[in-house]
């Protein structure tokens, strides 16, 4: 195995978190930084050639290739896991920019009480209201501590939105339930699609408080604090599963890469498939010495480093630590170990598919143009008389209807899925249907976790990650009530017919939900109950930091990227300002 020259910093993964850390350290320190990305190079100016639905949205060109590596799934610890032979319920990205290139750019913040879920619930409803096998715990950082980092994130992305709570003052038109924010969004809300306007009016008529989706798809030209200028969105409808060809959508290649490319101390190495983190013998004082990877030509390479950042997304962060033997694997039966615990997946589903008499101009839109409603999120509604905790956001967006993926959704009464009647209805309703989607919180449970699969291997012969994951009554009941409320809104919008979500049963790997899978290397305040401290620093190796959704101890209703970036900024500050001067555990 070839050993390369030592780098000060190695970052595993070139997505949102890895590249944000590379930008921060590249700009603020003289450290040599090497980013290892196993996928291909990407750049915003190349995306103009790629607006092909079949290749990108259906065959998933930008996603990780399941033939090389996938995960296995079972519903409970007694079951036998089988591989997800194609990714479907979540879609991990690959290539420079990662999933940040093909996201929709919806950017709500998490609610303040989300960070203190255990204590706040205990305080308000008593600890007995938490489900029997819950694994809910506080984050160890509060919303107030994170607020300045949220603000920095929003400036970085140029978010388009409307504040609802400015330093404690309620603001008309924004989200009245949001945590306080220190300033207004950098840019005003995006244009509102017709379907979303119907939702706004319908929801208001029922006394709810809809507000514009905080969007990373710019409403107007914007220059961020790094001097990166981006044009406004043209509502072409190619966000999700595509890179933005004009860079109006904040994506790592439009927001971070141009800054990084000017820094001589940062290198991005493509095609580098990391297999192990190399560390000194286990123990409380262990250190990571670097990483081994297979390069684009198939050669195994050792890259030594002084500091290692693991930024390879939720599942691979957990898997690489398991494969490397760093930390104690979680064992729910024995109640031991922390690595792999608290696996969650945002509870996301189309609660109401609403059909209208008038066309909706669905071809026009962006991934984040539309309306949200937080009246049923978190603890914004009283749960004393309900049989579940928490809730979710309701959203009505127009993301640009693509013909293959969207044709054929017809009212249930049509009764067929092929043939003349179905075809006629498909044509009639193609532009007369809209979905109201729920994004709900997923509590952590002792029985939902990750470990290494005993049977299935990846292309290198390394064990696949095994997910043990299923819904519980809390999510099922929450989905039931939120579906009911959503259907009421759809009726108030003037829908002539509504297809209703049939309900959550077992976790279904075939239905796309969201790519918001969280947990595995959770943060916390003690090594007994978490893998890393609140800076993402590993309890057993002070020179190893983990970034991303794998740090979340519970799953949020709000989409996680703003919180993930805010936490990455916080870690960057701690490393650049404190760790570099005095390496060791950060308080």
């Amino acid at each position, binding site marked *: 195995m070839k050993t390369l020259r030592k780098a000060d910093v190695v970052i595993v993964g070139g997505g949102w978190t890895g590249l944000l850390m590379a930008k921060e350290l590249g700009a603020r320190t003289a450290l040599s930084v090497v980013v290892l990305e196993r996928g291909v190079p990407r750049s915003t100016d190349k995306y103009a050639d790629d607006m*092909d*639905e*079949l290749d990108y949205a*259906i*065959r*998933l060109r930008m996603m990780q*290739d*399941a*033939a090389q590596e*996938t995960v296995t*799934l079972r519903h409970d610890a007694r079951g*036998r896991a*089988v*591989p*997800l*032979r*194609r990714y*479907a319920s979540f879609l991990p990205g690959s290539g420079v920019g990662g999933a940040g290139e093909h996201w929709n750019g919806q950017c709500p913040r998490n609610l303040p009480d989300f960070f203190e879920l255990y204590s706040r619930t205990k305080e308000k409803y008593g600890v007995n209201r938490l489900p029997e096998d819950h694994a809910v715990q506080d984050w160890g950082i509060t919303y107030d501590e994170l607020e300045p980092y949220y603000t920095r994130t929003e400036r970085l992305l140029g978010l388009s939105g409307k504040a609802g709570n400015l330093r404690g003052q309620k603001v008309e038109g924004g989200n009245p339930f949001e945590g306080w924010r220190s300033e207004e969004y950098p840019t005003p809300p995006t244009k509102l699609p017709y379907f979303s306007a119907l939702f706004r009016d319908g929801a208001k008529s029922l006394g709810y408080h809809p507000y514009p989706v905080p969007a990373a798809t710019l409403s107007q030209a914007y220059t961020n604090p790094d001097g990166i200028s981006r044009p406004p969105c043209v509502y072409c409808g190619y966000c999700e599963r595509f890179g933005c060809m004009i860079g109006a959508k904040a994506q790592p290649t439009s927001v971070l890469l141009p800054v990084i490319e000017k820094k001589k101390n940062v290198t991005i190495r493509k095609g580098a498939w990391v297999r192990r983190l190399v560390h000194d013998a286990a123990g409380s004082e262990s250190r990571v010495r670097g990483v081994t990877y297979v390069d684009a030509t198939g050669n195994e390479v050792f890259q030594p480093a002084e500091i290692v950042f693991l930024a390879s997304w939720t599942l691979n962060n957990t898997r690489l630590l398991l494969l490397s033997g760093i930390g104690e694997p979680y064992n729910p039966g024995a109640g031991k170990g922390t690595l792999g615990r608290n696996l969650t997946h945002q509870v996301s589903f189309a609660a109401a598919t609403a059909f209208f008499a008038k066309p909706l101009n669905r071809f026009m839109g962006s991934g984040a143009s539309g309306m949200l409603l937080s009246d049923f999120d978190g603890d914004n509604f009283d749960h004393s008389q309900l049989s579940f905790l928490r809730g979710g956001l309701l959203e009505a967006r127009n993301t640009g209807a693509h*013909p*293959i993926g969207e*044709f*054929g959704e017809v009212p249930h009464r049509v009764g067929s*899925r*092929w*043939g*003349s009647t179905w*075809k*006629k209805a498909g*044509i009639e309703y*193609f*532009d007369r249907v809209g979905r109201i989607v729920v994004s709900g919180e997923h509590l952590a449970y002792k029985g939902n976790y990750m470990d290494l699969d005993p*049977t*299935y*291997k990846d292309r290198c012969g390394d064990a696949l990650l095994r997910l043990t994951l299923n819904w519980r009554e809390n999510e099922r009941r929450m989905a039931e009530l939120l579906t009911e409320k959503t259907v009421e809104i759809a009726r108030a919008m003037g829908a002539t017919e509504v297809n209703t979500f049939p309900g959550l049963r*077992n*976790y*279904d*790997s*075939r239905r796309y939900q969201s790519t918001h899978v969280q947990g595995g290397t959770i943060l916390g305040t003690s090594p007994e109950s978490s893998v890393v401290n609140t800076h993402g620093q590993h309890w057993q190796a002070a020179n190893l930091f983990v970034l991303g959704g794998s740090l979340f101890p519970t799953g949020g209703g709000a989409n996680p990227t703003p919180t993930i970036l805010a936490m990455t900024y916080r870690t960057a500050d701690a490393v650049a300002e404190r760790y570099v001067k005095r390496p060791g555990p950060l308080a």
Partner: protein
Amino acid sequence: MRRRRFLTISCTTLGGVLVYSLDRKVSLLSANEKNKDKSLRIPLRFFDEGEALLAAAAASRIFPSDVSGPGAKEAGVVIYIDRQLAGPYGSDRYRYTQGPFEDAPAEFGYQGKATPREIYREGLKGLTGFDQLNAEEQDATLERIEASVFFSLLRQHTIEGMFCDPMHGGNADMVGWQLIG
């Protein structure tokens, strides 16, 4: 080496065919009197002619040509499916295909070993004579296999072939896109 295989179709059955040539001129062979005996030979990459006729007939029942507009026949869905099966998708280049292959409940996704090519080859065997049936008999036949993996692929690929970018071989003359505006 095997001889190239073609799907031979007459202009009349298609109601007209667009022909592209390398001089960048597009000509339309319309289904009028003058062209009524003209036929096109389209090279096949995966199907043999018999299979192509069966797949085309089945796709035409899923997305029929009728009063609400053109369907799978006019869009050239069978050509699209043939191209897809011949390419990396057809051989499962991007699917995890390591064993063991275990049965699992439906919510774990397709767990079979068979590739799309194999599923079609096998599925079309079960449709022998299908293209000779009348429409009612054809629908009854498809209803019997509605729950099969083969049918779900055929349905999905028919929609893809109706609405994909024409560069993939389907949606000829953008008839699918014009249907939905």
